[in-house]
């Protein structure tokens, strides 16, 4: 990690109080993001994977301060974001943008495509004149594969794939450095998904973008990411370079996830055995002691019950598991 990081996240906590029925019972704490630390290097794509409820969407929103952070630090080019006032945060919004999962739900149905893409320019670069704004919008539309003639259309006139192109244009029009993509292709059809993935890769190359790419689909993440972070119950299980992670996952949870990805080859698919892990996830309100994954882990022993594993380096990879050496063997 010699290169200075674009984004540094240290010991990040995002907790939600959960009220319990009953007048005098104190609320429980849901640790949606629990002691998460990682770096994002300039120009890389960091994939973030995990099952539903692992905290990946909460994390992406917290990074952009769309939801409050409980504790910890998020620094963009050395500037601490968690303690900034709203007004001071605004110029930084230009540097960090987000693309959402459901393209239609994240676009205002009463605004035209042109207005939607111009909106962040108006908000973040208010002194830009109308003509230039229009120019930027048109250029952005062309870059994401929308036609200039579509500028006065409304979102509902577009298919899911086209609507996602609008969402991408809206995020990129202010020329951000870092784009957090939260399941950007999960809602799209197979034939459209690959178009949008290729578009994201092209735009990254053209504009020198850095992505945090959040997804549950490990095959898609392998395609787009340079490094991958695996989350479980709000905690980091493993952060590793893509090729190493997919070739030799060190964390038992990563192995479980990979073994469950269906393979579109009937011969291979039938040779594999179904994932043996227990289905029941622990309640996020009552996590197991020690390692959060131990209740589903085939390697769990007394140490995993007693002691929470820290994220430690093994051969240039970061793994939070007492048995990482055994698991990777």
């Amino acid at each position, binding site marked *: 990690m010699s290169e200075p990081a674009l984004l540094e996240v240290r010991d990040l906590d995002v907790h939600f109080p959960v009220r319990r029925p009953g007048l005098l019972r104190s609320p429980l704490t849901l640790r949606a993001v629990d002691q998460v630390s990682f770096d994002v290097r300039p120009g890389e794509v960091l994939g973030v994977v995990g*099952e*539903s409820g692992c905290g990946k969407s909460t994390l992406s929103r917290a990074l952009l301060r769309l939801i409050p952070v409980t504790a910890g630090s998020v620094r963009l080019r050395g500037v601490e974001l968690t303690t900034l006032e709203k007004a001071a945060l605004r110029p930084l919004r230009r540097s960090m943008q987000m693309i959402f999962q459901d393209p239609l739900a994240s676009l205002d149905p009463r605004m035209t495509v042109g207005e939607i893409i111009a909106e962040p320019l108006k908000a973040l670069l208010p002194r830009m004149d109308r003509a230039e704004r229009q120019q930027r919008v048109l250029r952005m539309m062309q870059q994401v594969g929308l036609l200039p003639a579509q500028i006065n259309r409304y979102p509902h006139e577009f*298919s*899911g*794939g*086209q609507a996602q192109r609008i969402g991408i244009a809206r995020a990129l029009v202010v020329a951000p450095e870092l784009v957090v993509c939260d399941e950007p292709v999960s809602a799209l*059809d*197979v*034939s*459209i*998904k*690959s*178009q949008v*993935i*290729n578009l994201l*890769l092209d735009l990254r190359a053209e504009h020198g973008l850095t992505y945090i790419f959040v997804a*549950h*689909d*490990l*095959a*898609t993440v*392998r*395609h787009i990411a340079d490094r991958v972070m695996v989350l479980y119950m709000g905690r980091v299980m493993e952060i590793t370079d893509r090729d190493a992670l*997919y070739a030799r996952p060190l964390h038992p949870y990563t192995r*479980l*996830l*990979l*073994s*469950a*990805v*269906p*393979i*579109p*080859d*009937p*011969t*291979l*698919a*039938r040779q594999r055995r*179904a*994932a043996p*892990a227990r*289905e*029941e*996830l622990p309640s996020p309100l009552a996590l197991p002691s020690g390692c959060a994954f131990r209740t589903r882990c085939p390697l769990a022993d007394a140490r995993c019950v007693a002691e929470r594993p820290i994220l430690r380096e093994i051969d240039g990879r970061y793994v939070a598991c007492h048995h990482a050496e055994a698991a990777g063997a």
Partner: protein
Amino acid sequence: MAAEALLEVRNLSVCFDTGDGPVYAVNGLDLEVRRGEVLGMVGESGSGKSQSWLAVMGLLAKNGRAEGSARLGGEEILNLPQRALRRLRGDRMAMIFQDPMTAMNPFLTVGRQMTEVLECHRGLSRREARARCVAALESVHIGDAARRLSMYPHEFSGGMRQRVMIATALLTEPQLLICDEPTTALDVTVQAQILALLDELRQRYRTAIVLITHDLGVIAQLADRVTVMYAGRQVEQAEVHTLYGAYRHPYTEGLLRSVPRLDQPRSERLATIPGRPPDLARRPAGCPFEPRCAYVTEICRQRMPPLVSLGDAHLRACHYDGALGRAEIGA
């Protein structure tokens, strides 16, 4: 076609009356489902894969119409009166959906919803029905079944809810189970378990399963035969190994090549199918896939290719006769 057909669908069309005129969701579907087999039905949104089976089940939306024929064990069931359909559904055929939460009543315990099926269809007493439901939950590997019957749907995880749906669907031992994207809303780890469960049940009860999904990985794991749908039409049908290994339709090729997959080396760019999904309100004279096809010729614009046999139970609807392998990379 040695094995006995349980369900025969002939020339099934589904049309919806909309403000913009009629929209044809399914055009001339022809297929059989055999006892004990898993028929995979793969396609993207708007391909007609779900509407075909909602029509067979008599569950189309109010503005939908079905034409053609569907025979279950030789008996015509398409467009039967609601009463007869209600007897058939949950008795000889059942359907489960992507989101079990929307298919369950949130105000009733799981036990109440399950026993109701047996009280209505089998005339069992509450107590007998309860015992059968406990056994059914155990057969889908839900532990502590008796206690679970008094729980409400929201108290179950997504995977457990889908198990409950499957158990409920199987209470009356239907001959045909239609599963519409049964694992799409689930995590991969849970998906693997539900697929294993479906496989186990079809072996144990010889239930025929129709597996509707957009996911080629799911189909590869479970289906014996596969039908590929595009714009309301069957474009290819074959035994599963033939379809994945020796497909003959350009759309099948495009689908298989554009999926990122872990069993192959990573490529810098994904192959894509250029263009957009078809607009069902327009009914082109030619092949609906023609605007996106890499092998298009003049005749494709003029005439819809018929579904013809290539031998060995392999069917396809395409005018192009040459070799495939030209799917676009990185459009």
